[in-house]
């Protein structure tokens, strides 16, 4: 199974960040509904199983 680490929406957390952990990333996805566009970010890891929004890098 593909993992978050291979996904376009995976952005690695920099080493100097307060919440840094090895292999941790921000999953940032764009959403759109009748009110407009917004972006969500939640923590994932390189090895986290991909979700339905997975898009290969």
């Amino acid at each position: 199974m593909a993992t978050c680490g291979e996904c376009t929406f995976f952005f690695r957390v920099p080493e100097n960040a307060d919440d840094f952990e090895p292999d941790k990333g921000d999953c940032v996805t764009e959403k759109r509904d009748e009110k407009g566009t917004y972006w969500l970010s939640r923590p994932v890891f390189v090895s986290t199983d991909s979700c339905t929004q997975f898009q290969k890098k």
Partner: protein
Amino acid sequence: MATMAPAVEYKGKVIDFPFENPEEEKIPDDELHEHLAKPSTERTKRLKARCRWKHASAGEFVEHGVRAGIERMRLVTEAHKASRGKPEVTRRALILERCLNKGTICLQTDEKIIGYHAEDPNYFPLYPELSYMNVKDYLMSDYSPQPEAEAEAINDYWKPYSLQAKCEQYFDPIDLTRMYQVSTMEAPTFAHGYNSIIPPYETVLEDGLLKRIKMAEEHIKEAKAELAKEPWDGSKQLSWIPKIDNWQAMVIADKAVIAWARRYARLCKIVAENFESDPDRKKELMEMAEISNRVPAEPCKGLKDAFQAKWYTFLVCHGIERYASGFAHKEDKVLYPYYKASVIDKTFQPMTHADVVEYVEMERLKISEHGAGKSRGYREIFPGSNDLFILTLGGTNRDGSDGCNDMTDAILEGARNIRTTEPSIVFRYSKKNRPQTLRKVFNCVRDGLGYPSIKNDDVGIEQMKYYSKFSMNNNGATDEEAHDWCNVLCMSPGLCGRRKSQKTRSEGGSAIFPAKILEITLNNGYDWAYSDMQLGPETGNAEDFKTYDDLLEAFRKQYSYVMSLVVRAKDVGRHIETQYLQIPFVSSIDDGCMELGEEATHLSEQPNGWHNPITTIVAANSLVAMKKLIYDEKKYTMKQLMDALKANWEGHEEMRKDFKNAPKWGNDDDYADTIIQSFYEDILGGEMAKVTNYSGGPVLPVGQAVALYMEVGSRTGPTPDGRYGGEAADDGGISPYFGTDTKGPTAVLKSVSKVQKNQKANLLNQRLAVPMMRSVHGFDIWHAYMDTWHDLNVDHVQFNCVSTDEMRAAQREPEKHRDLIVRIAGFSARFVDIPTYGQNTIIARNEQNFGPQDFEFMNLELGQ
């Protein structure tokens, strides 16, 4: 064509009332409000058009797609399980840390102030650690968190740990059942989790959290040294242990908040670099990233910093660490130093006054889309409202000088432009307030926003000094600090600033219903009209009361029973909060908690006890009618009255007319006012003041109504004031009953000013005629009225300035009247979002026209 106010003859002159803005002559009366919104920029116009409103009507969310999220429930539960064995305050810090570290964060188009407290901007979080009944209520609704089975399991897990379960065991089941009826009293806080707080925003903006962490770490170091001192004295040294735990929890909480803000900074940068194509927006996003990297970790240097750091603090204090309603702060005072830096001195984040107004509009829209997981009961009592977001402006500074500044003006301008119902504004009226700001206050009032709601600055200051005397650590408000007050929610002042502010609702809030108490007083404590059960002690039947004093004495006993029970419920809740619902982030930003190593739910330096009598005037007018017609004139017997009431006046129409026509409050009528003054001061206030709460001070009445006057009115049977069973009760703490104040606006003031003793606050609703207010003389009349109100030492007044024509038109075609706003009680709402029952109570309010006798009393000079 718009209606113009008719000319008035005054002091031998004919005074005409042409419109101040002649263009308004062409706007029909029934569409005026649709012409008043003027968002100041294209951005705020877009933001308003796409605002994700979270208000409810008749208990249902008005906007499609709004619902409870599961993420906070899930994270709180994971952290609670993972932290078993640690000190409770540490667990609370770790729960917050997990929510901030692992929760989803959100950024929306166009916004410059970022941050939300749920996993999606259409959702709001729930708080299973507070009330399992409240979560259950959502599980049974269309707004249930998903997946529902998981949410159900989480709620089951929390049931034994919840505030509700921990409190219930200290109450007799009969008392609990009585409280849960919401008939003579509001249900206890532990049953619904409703809460309020005044966060000490100042420490975050002035110090930054890194400094707060350093302070806590230094205290820990000192405390450990004290703990290790020889020879050991357990009677003293052990007291350092809970302090160390508290400071350590503060450090965890503050570090988590900094890291969370920096996650937002990263999100802005990622979106700018990977998703956004507009170069201007990219630049904005990079600036937002830079700001969130710096604040709230460091002190704010400019106004953009301050808006953002304040917003993060708001989210944590009101929505993430724990739920709390409100938006309590003295916003002009909090923001002015940064306004000065950015607008006047231009030392950091240089901007114009117009830029500030845009920020105000953006903040108002952020508040409008901030969701609160209130229980259905609470959604019903705030129809058309989101969550009693109320900020305070004006008043005086610590040295007694005028508290208005250019930030005050920007906030009022932004509010008038963007025309949202929330946040509501309280303006502290002082004779020292500068005219240019008063004019802006008036502009909002005249535009029918229903706010600013006006509070008497001097009354508030004296009140802070009075409560200070009861401080249990002799560190209540100093005379200078007494000037730093804001309303906690709709009506009650509380200290604000770096320390001594209210941190939890046990201090004040929640309601008692005098009209219903009178009803059960007449029936030996039995509620025949709604709950069909014994709601209070057996104090005899109406027919047993040989004198008016006998009747009053029975009422006093019923009222005292409820008062002690409701404050006990709040204080038991407070006790449990200190053990299991600590708020280490709030502790970390309060100077008192930081200095003393105390927890915010535990430390109380300035008592501020109050409870809200709602439906007082129905009870008071009923007492007047009974005294006059039964005890004084003996026109009817009590048995006749009771028969008529039990029949809801049917078959007793003539008798009802007599009771309805008995003297009523608000007409400067000595007979009625003497009875009612004594009812307020000796019974409602006097009995309440005998109760001492957690903080060691007296509990005093804050008469107000939210929309409970409708809800409780519908639960209250027919009353001796001539009211039919189920009709709405009076709409404010001291407002005359709808349509019964017939002697003009100054007669209302004269009546209201008679009540002074044993009161904390009393809400006065007045409805002003639109044509006179929009005329060339509008401001002068209002200003003279306000000075008269102030000189009579009245605590509060707020206005509806909307025509009956426009409200009727909105009832016919709601879709054409989306911007019609009205004042309900402590909050404003879009008229079309209020149920018809509620709309009709606004229409029924007497529209006050000022006449020569009012001008005379107000000592007003009117030119042509």
